[in-house]
């Protein structure tokens, strides 16, 4: 769980969040609306080059994250490749479908390049920077505060939960299926009580420091690099250009 968050904080593009958000969201849009061949393929290539050589994400990490949704892709596409029909006389018929194959190809290519554009964002921009941007574009305050609090809590809870599971498993709490359910359910319940307790303790800690119901944090004002920005615009237009020339 920390893999993506860690790299978002230590990659080479860490100090250009706005530009990277623009670059990757533009690429995502291109992957969604251009014909997959060559549009999506170009997006995939661009993202790979950007992530590996621009942001200096190690190839092993990049491809590992890229392949995370592979199961969904395989299972979902299986349904696309075959066609089914039901007839009173012939009964259920399952057949390999050429048209379905074509759809599957399009969808797989589009998905992989869209995922690549997305992980360029998630691997290079930490959530805190996205929250800063959300605040600037006036996303409702309640949502932002909820996101901030959940971000603050989830790593703490993850740690608590991992230690609960470890403590149970060294006492053979996961020896068989029934015990596994028993142990897991009590771990979940304990996590809930610990979570509520944490929230109360945080509240009294904040209260004693003059908490008024608002959590203010200091945001670093970042200079937007115009060179980076021009690079991003150029990349988008080159992909658009090549796509229009080749079709």
């Amino acid at each position, binding site marked *: *769980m*920390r893999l993506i*968050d860690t790299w978002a904080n230590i990659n080479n593009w860490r100090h250009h969040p706005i530009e990277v958000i623009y670059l990757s969201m533009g690429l*995502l849009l291109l992957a*969604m*609306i251009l014909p997959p061949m060559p549009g999506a393929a170009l997006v995939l290539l661009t993202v790979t080059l950007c992530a590996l050589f621009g942001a200096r994400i190690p190839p092993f990490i990049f491809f590992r*994250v890229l392949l*995370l*949704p592979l199961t*969904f*892709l395989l*299972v*979902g596409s299986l*349904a696309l490749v075959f*066609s*089914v*029909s039901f007839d009173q006389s012939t009964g259920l018929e399952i057949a390999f*479908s050429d048209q*379905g194959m074509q*759809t599957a190809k399009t969808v797989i290519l*589009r*998905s*992989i390049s*869209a*995922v690549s554009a*997305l992980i360029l964002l*998630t691997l290079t921009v930490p*959530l805190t920077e996205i929250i800063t941007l959300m605040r600037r574009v006036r996303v409702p*305050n*309640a*949502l932002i*505060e*909820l*996101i901030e*609090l*959940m971000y603050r*809590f989830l790593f703490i*809870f*993850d740690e608590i*939960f991992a230690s609960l599971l470890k403590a149970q498993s060294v006492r053979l709490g*996961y020896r068989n*299926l029934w015990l*596994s*359910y*028993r142990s*897991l*359910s009590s771990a*979940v*319940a304990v996590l*809930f*009580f610990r*979570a*509520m307790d944490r*929230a*109360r303790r945080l*509240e009294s800690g*904040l*209260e004693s420091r003059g*908490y008024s*119901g608002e959590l203010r944090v200091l945001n670093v004002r970042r200079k937007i690099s115009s060179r980076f920005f021009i690079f991003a615009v150029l990349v988008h237009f080159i992909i658009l250009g090549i796509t229009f020339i080749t079709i």
Partner: protein
Amino acid sequence: MHIMEGYLPASHASGWWLATSPFLAWGIRSAGKIMKGNKEAKLLLGASGGFAFVLSALKLPSVTGSSAHPTGIGLGSVLFGPQVMCTIGFVVLLFQVMFLGHGGITTLGANTFSMAIVGAWVAWGVFRSLKALGLSLAVSVFFAATLADLATYITTALQLALAFPDPVSGLSGALAKFMGIFALTQVPLAISEGLLTTLVVNVFHSHGREALLNLGVISKVGESKP
């Protein structure tokens, strides 16, 4: 199982965003009210969200040994109510995109609709009606969590079928295909989640009755044991 990034065509993805937005706006407004009214409630809401996320990233023990993830939506909806759960579910899905690489930005609307709106309301509706019929806490929770999971997967199958109708038999054929695939993987998962959620609520009932009372899940102290 969330629909991955780029899987739905642009028109469908934006359509589902549009369908989700009124529920989300409503959920955010009610979350805002909870936060404004009470300083402590704000942190408790954040903690509930963090809890829901950890739960959603959990691996369920299953017979086949494959990793199966619960949605946690049944438990969350029974504990906190469907309106709040819609907002929390949205953020949970956003975090899954950001930290786990599950789902996507373009498909976030569709995934929020199936999990945090349909799932949460089904869980809550089933739980309240079974309780009203006088069934025990355990039975109500089991069906609430299981049916919420199933409703989520049926909605996902419907979303996929709408986007990719079968070349021969159209929408109904596609729905049958996607449901068929999901049924194999998700029905056992839904039952496991129902079971786990019931056990969790049982632990609550015996060790943290006050919490359940405060949240309005059970109504009186003298309620019979599940």
